[in-house]
């Protein structure tokens, strides 16, 4: 009896490891930026290229920073959720148009609605590199002191919003 228990035990442990491994998404690379200050940038606004925005301007606010592009299909998937969130007004969303033609980005916002308070334009992807962006969409939650508290890679889902982002927003806004 004992002879069979040991291989069975090993087998169960192995299955456990494999089951957890199956659920992990290799695309979700843990960001080293969490808990660090949001990297600085000074980029032109999509709505008015003559004006610029920098994370320093948003000190004192808890805000979501959503990196998107008109060429990104997954961004369209999360777009209605962001619109909902903007309508509720719980947390301001700022966008960054990553490696995109400003004209195309504006066309997307005109057609599907604009959830962003402002969108900055990162034409060459430099600011994106500083934020460790490697696939749009990516969403960062930045606190009142300009510290990145959370990062989500890929389209935001209702579940992520309800379980992770919104509770954290509430906590940070206090």
């Amino acid at each position, binding site marked *: 009896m004992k002879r069979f228990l040991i291989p069975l035990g090993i087998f169960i442990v192995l299955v456990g490891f494999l089951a957890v491994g199956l659920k992990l998404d*290799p*695309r979700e*690379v*843990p*960001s*080293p*930026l969490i808990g660090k200050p949001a990297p600085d940038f000074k980029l032109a606004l999509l709505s008015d290229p003559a004006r610029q925005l920098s994370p320093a301007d948003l000190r004192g606010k808890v805000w979501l920073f959503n990196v998107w592009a008109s060429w990104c299909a997954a961004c369209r998937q999360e777009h209605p959720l962001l619109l909902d969130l903007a309508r509720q007004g719980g947390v301001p969303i700022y966008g960054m148009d990553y*490696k995109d033609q400003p004209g195309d980005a504006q066309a997307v916002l005109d057609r599907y609605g604009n959830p962003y308070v402002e969108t900055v334009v990162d034409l*060459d*992807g430099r600011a994106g*590199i*500083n*934020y*460790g*962006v*490697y*696939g749009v969409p990516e969403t960062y939650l930045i606190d009142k002191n300009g510290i990145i508290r959370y990062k989500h890679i890929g389209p935001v889902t209702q579940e992520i919003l309800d379980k992770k982002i919104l509770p954290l927003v509430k906590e940070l806004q206090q």
Partner: protein
Amino acid sequence: MRPWIMVFALWLPFAAMAGEAKPVAEDPVTEQRMIALSENLRCLVCQNESLAGSRAELAQDLRQEIREQMRAGKSDAQVIEYLTQRYGDFVLYKPPVKPLTWLLWFGPFVLLIGAAGSLYAYIKRRGNRLAEVSLSQEEKKRVEALLGNGHGEKRRPE
């Protein structure tokens, strides 16, 4: 006249190639360094490709960034630090040895030593058990009979 045209035609593709390869020719030393470094870095878009080999747009941007930083006089270690600050240790194909990666680095050796240890214990135990086996008179006779002393196989007398 004709050989002239042929020489010209033969030379044409080289002229075209020279045009394409210009960025390398501009600074071959930096290019060499950049490629050597980025071969050990992971492209985050196509995770099984190195940064040197990937055609993903982000990889091209990052290669350009590395080139510029090298030209600005940054050391390899500084460039790697720049990348790990943004993308984490995940970009390194060879992760650094630190408490978090001890299991990764030393786990296989621990397993090897453990396996060697249990193999040794098993062989020793088995040896002890084998030594205990002794034959009775009758069994010895049967062994001899079976081995046959050159007469071939014999059946045990009933």
